[in-house]
């Protein structure tokens, strides 16, 4: 290679790198075309099995408690876009909650029923159902007012080196996007497809389950499901994904 062509090649690489850094793509953009088609096909994406379960639970009556549908009549219209606004700060409690948290809160406080528990099949089903009602709606979370400290916490979590491997989220999910990590392609770390059906799990899982897998991967502390750390990170990831459409239930490797 002549030195002139090397300069051109370097310039091209720099250009490609700059373009990649500006435009954030959802996780599905890193799937094979076959898997992308499978995600979009409701007959073949197994995530819809959980959506069906959620839809059933939504109008199921437990004892004397009102059903979800008693308040949220016509959910296809009334709840469209709801998932795109989570996580958000709960007006009553003043704390950040995500969609799973809101559904559990409704169940415990309004329906007076025992909580399903994070990552239970029932909660995953309901979350997937409610999220699926927002398919295609661009993410529009708020970082104003009470949400601001959570956003800052999430941002610093994302940028902080951690674990025995001493890696920050940003080093892979900004710096090495498109490259291979074992058999998979590194994505921007966007959670628009969650709860998602992961082939590795043989089932549906929440974003927090995915984050726990990432924490384990860098040999860092795994936080609990629904912990403040992951909630703040979820908010930061949602801000990164602002304008990208909700894809849940997604299909991931």
């Amino acid at each position, binding site marked *: 290679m002549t030195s002139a062509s090397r300069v051109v090649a370097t310039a091209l690489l720099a250009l490609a790198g700059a373009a990649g850094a500006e435009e954030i793509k959802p996780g599905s953009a890193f799937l094979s075309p076959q898997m992308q088609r499978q995600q979009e096909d409701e*007959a073949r994406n*197994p995530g819809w099995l959980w959506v*069906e379960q959620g839809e059933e639970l939504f109008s199921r009556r437990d004892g004397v408690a009102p059903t979800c549908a008693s308040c949220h009549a016509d959910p296809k219209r009334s709840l469209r876009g709801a998932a795109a606004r989570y996580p958000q700060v709960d007006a009553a409690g003043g704390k950040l909650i995500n969609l799973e948290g809101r559904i559990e809160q409704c169940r415990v406080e309004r329906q007076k029923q025992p909580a399903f528990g994070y990552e239970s099949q029932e909660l995953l089903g309901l979350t997937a159902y409610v999220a699926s009602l927002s398919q295609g709606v661009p993410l529009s979370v708020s970082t104003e007012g009470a949400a601001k400290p959570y956003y800052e916490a999430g941002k610093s979590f994302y940028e902080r080196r951690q674990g025995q491997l001493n890696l920050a989220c940003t080093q892979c999910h900004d710096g090495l996007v498109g490259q291979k990590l074992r058999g998979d392609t590194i994505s921007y770390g966007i959670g628009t497809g969650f709860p998602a059906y992961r082939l590795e799990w043989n089932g549906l899982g929440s974003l927090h389950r995915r984050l726990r897998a990432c924490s384990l991967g860098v040999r860092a502390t795994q936080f609990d499901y629904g912990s403040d750390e992951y909630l703040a990170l979820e908010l930061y990831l949602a801000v990164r994904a602002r304008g990208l459409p909700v894809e849940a239930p997604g299909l991931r490797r």
Partner: protein
Amino acid sequence: MASFNARITMPAEAKAGDIVEIRVLVRHPMDRGGQVDAEGRVVPRKILNRLTVIYAGEPVFRYDMHTGVSANPFVSFTTRAVETGDLLFEWREDGGATFTRTARLVVT
């Protein structure tokens, strides 16, 4: 295990003689067994081992499944539309349990 759930996707209507595609996705862990549980016993295999589909009084499709089949298996097949009626889907699980679903095909 969560309740058995099947998603059967096919056209609701077809002309006589048409080839219709039927797509079937079911929720099942397809546990291949062999693990040792907390009491030291070997967990038995528990998978759906057969799907049969009966249409117009005749078996039109049979799928024998083994431990290599993934959880929540998907299968698609085609059949010829002959008369208006129900397609009867029956899954057989290890241990003898069966699950059935029907889907109606209107032939014009």
